[in-house]
């Protein structure tokens, strides 16, 4: 079985300009998309809300996930607590939002009751569902509660915090956990949890440190790959391979950002994979060009590229096709998170295959013409 007739040379090079412009356009758009709308970072990177729930009837993790998804909470992590039936920890991207203006208003309201100078501390939690209050004078929880409710806050309860002579209070606001439970009651009926066992803001698993490490690692990778290509092949080949690699990584990220899919640790792995795929695909085409350059000394580099690309076309299509098929299963059956990652991989594999032919090769040819032939 054969997809391409052997011995036929397709004139890839003739049609390069439209493709080069498309690539330039897509890369520029991807770069821009990183600033606007900007990546939508998931819980891994920016934290979120963690809610622990005890369902009152049998609920499977997929039931719960579907219910939460249909409530419009984005993709949650649904973690079953082992040993307790139907107890789950959910991690949601959303956090209860508490606008600064409202915080200021509430603080002022409390100030009128207590005396503005007596409100020592009035800080909302990062998750926006808790206020830490420190007063200089003793007060009752009810006084604080009515002041906050008066300012338009949706207060669940106010409690004293720490030892009794310490005049610290915590006001819990009706937030995302309550909203979630209310929504679940509509979806799951009797089986829904009665109330959230605990609602807490969780910090990011991977902060700026990991993101910087990822960017640094990729930049170093590019540098070393460039050196390796220059050493194994030729100086003219190096920029093409690296530009193709950047092109693929950027476009993959760009598509991801434009569709506003959640960027997780898995996305980082996917982009790294695309980089790996892109390098190896480009090198295979390069290897053929190198081989044919030695055999066809009189031919122009453009012709050599055409011949080489045509010869490797069968392999290119099979390998990329197999790679696509191998992640397609995840895409069809996976849950949302896995689907996002495989989606990135599919985009990356397609772009990676294309870029070897229309980014790496033309750039190599141009560098050859511009810097090497004149001498």
């Amino acid at each position, binding site marked *: 079985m054969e997809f391409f007739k052997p011995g036929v040379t397709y004139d890839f090079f003739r049609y390069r300009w439209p493709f080069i412009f498309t690539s330039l356009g897509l890369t520029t758009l991807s770069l821009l998309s990183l600033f606007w709308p900007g990546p939508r970072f998931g819980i891994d990177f920016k934290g979120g809300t963690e809610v622990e729930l005890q369902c009152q009837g049998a609920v499977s993790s997929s039931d719960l996930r579907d219910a939460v998804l249909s409530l419009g909470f984005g993709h949650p992590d649904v973690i079953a607590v082992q040993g307790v039936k139907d107890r789950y920890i959910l991690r949601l991207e959303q956090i209860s939002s508490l606008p600064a203006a409202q915080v200021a208003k509430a603080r002022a309201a409390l100030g009128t009751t207590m005396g503005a100078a007596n409100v020592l501390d009035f800080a909302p939690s990062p998750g926006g569902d808790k206020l830490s209050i420190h007063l200089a004078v003793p007060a009752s929880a009810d006084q604080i509660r009515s002041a906050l409710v008066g300012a338009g806050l949706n207060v669940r309860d106010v409690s004293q915090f720490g030892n009794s002579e310490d005049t610290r209070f915590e006001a819990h606001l009706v937030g995302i956990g309550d909203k979630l439970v209310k929504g679940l009651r509509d979806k799951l009926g009797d089986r829904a949890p009665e109330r959230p066992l605990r609602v807490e803001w969780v910090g990011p698993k991977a902060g700026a440190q990991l993101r910087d490490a990822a960017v640094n690692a990729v930049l170093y990778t590019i540098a070393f790959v460039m050196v390796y290509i220059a050493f*194994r092949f030729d100086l003219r080949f190096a920029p093409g391979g690296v530009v193709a690699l950047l092109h693929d990584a950027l476009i993959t990220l760009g598509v991801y950002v434009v569709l506003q899919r959640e960027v997780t640790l898995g996305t980082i*792995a996917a982009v*790294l994979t695309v980089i790996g795929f892109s390098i190896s695909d480009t090198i295979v085409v390069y290897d053929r060009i190198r081989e044919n350059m030695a055999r066809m000394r009189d031919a122009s580099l453009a012709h050599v590229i055409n011949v080489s690309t045509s010869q490797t076309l069968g392999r290119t299509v099979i390998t990329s096709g*197999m790679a696509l098929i191998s992640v397609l*299963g995840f895409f069809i*059956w996976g849950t949302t998170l896995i689907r996002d990652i495989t989606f990135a991989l599919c985009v990356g594999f397609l772009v990676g295959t294309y870029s070897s032919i229309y980014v790496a090769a033309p750039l190599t040819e141009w560098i050859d013409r511009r810097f090497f032939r004149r001498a």
Partner: protein
Amino acid sequence: MDKGWYFRFSLMVFVTVFGWLVLWPSLDAWLPVPAPVRKYFTGRISPGLDIRGGLRLTYDVEVDEAVSDRRNLRSDQITRELGERLGVVAKGSTPTRDELAKVHARVQRKNDGERRIRVQFTSAADASKLDRDLVTRYGDLREVSRSETEVVLEVKTDFLEQIRDTAVQQARETIENRVDGLGMREASVTAQNTDIIVEVPGADQATFDRIREIISKTAKLEFEIVDDEASVLDGLTDLPKGVTRHSEFASAGVSKPQVSSSYLLARGKDARKTLLDYVDKLKAEHRIPEDHELLIGDAERASDEDVQLKTEPAFRTYYLFARAEVTGQAIEDAFVANDSQQGGKPYVAINFNSEGADLFKELTGRNVKRRMAIVLDDVVASAPVIQTEIGGGHCQVTLGGFRPYNEILNEARDLVVVLKAGALPVPIRPSNEQMIGPSLGKDGVAQGVKGFAVSFLIVLGFMAVYYEVGGMIADVMVILHLMFLLATLAFFDGTLSLPGVVAVALNMGMAVDANVLINERIREELRGGKSPRVAVEQGFARAFSSIFDSQITTLVAGVVLFQYGTGPIKAFAVTLIFGICTSLFTGVFCSRIAFDLIVRGLRVQRLRVG
């Protein structure tokens, strides 16, 4: 077939069998492993948190401790400055012990709650030295009240939150570094208000114990000078049963080489607890002066002649000046070394950073011929006499001696991990433990497995149809590759989480690619009219440079990612690196064996590669 082929074939069979044996224990749940295999092959792949779940530990960070630490720091700084203003301490110099004693005679400090200090003066004139300028110098202090001879200061409210947050963040980073130091890259450490949450994949109790142990260690390393001239312990009349008073001759400075010094000792099974309870009681009743500390340590290492304590555990007290002179923050590096003089007993060697080295030199120089206690987490590890000023910034910590070699070695190793990761800024307390399921959800994992299985079968089927015999060989190689890759992961006790699975998918793609390249080349050679035997030979030779270069470039990328990446990036890189090695082995070495068997062993006239 020639000899070389048989050799290669046996090597392949050997590696395959070995790979299977390494991998088998990881598949125990589906294919029970016979005992001998289990005994010799202990490595296992542990599925990550997202795939199998694990243990979730919650710790409370005692943030108030951070506030009182700040208060104590300011208290010391103010005392020192007051010493200068009172003309007792020379400007800009580190005050000596005698100078500090003179300051304390005129300025007493009392702690009040966790944020306040009451500074009491013997004369009103001295009190005026603590002026507004000194209070506001540090930005985070404010004056609460002032009388003739007493000034009350406290840490400003605005700074409390910041101090607490910083403490939580530092504690989180420290724990993360420690967990990383254990090689548990897949564990996750997050902060949640004043809690720290550590999630450890897997279900292995021994690992969990080790994690708990290493997290709960405060790893506060301090060097404090023993006060051998005090007589506080001599006055104690209520020693509980089992605690006895002893005296020893100790060196308390160059001019006093032989002073008699008292200490308390307890022996037997509950010795530690008995002695600790009594010491805590003394502390609670304020019978130990505030500038001193009574700590306990192992009694075996005491230079004590009249007590022979080789067989039963015994603990003794040390009476110390309470200020930590050099702390663990000064550590540059720590490693386990063996003491050849004591029968190879492991100890921990420490190198200080330049600041630490200076402090250590100053401390030892100032206290020559005194005893210096090396205190780890409030327990005295040893208390050697300083013979001379110690420059160079090296120091050793020896570990408790009643236990077998391996136990000491493990403790030394864990100590190195925690010392390198740094001390926790404040103590933490375990508050909750839960076993949790996979974060992808059980359904997510099941569907992922289904997706993988279907894709895998389609790829295998397509290869066999498209490349016929060559495709079937490729299929065998791809399966072998998957097995070797997983076996390598098992051998190194790797963790497989979602990023790892993605890396495995990439590797599968590269393994397929190697076979595609070979088959395509053989096809080309066959089309050129070559015999199967020659076509295979040349096909491999030609394909090799593509395979080699593309895989090596990816390997370069993998190594760089490993070098500069952290956490999940590293895990991804490791899988990638292993995968390239195994795909080179199966794709080039093993598939050649199979092709050779067909074209040279079976001498086929027509090689069917589609």
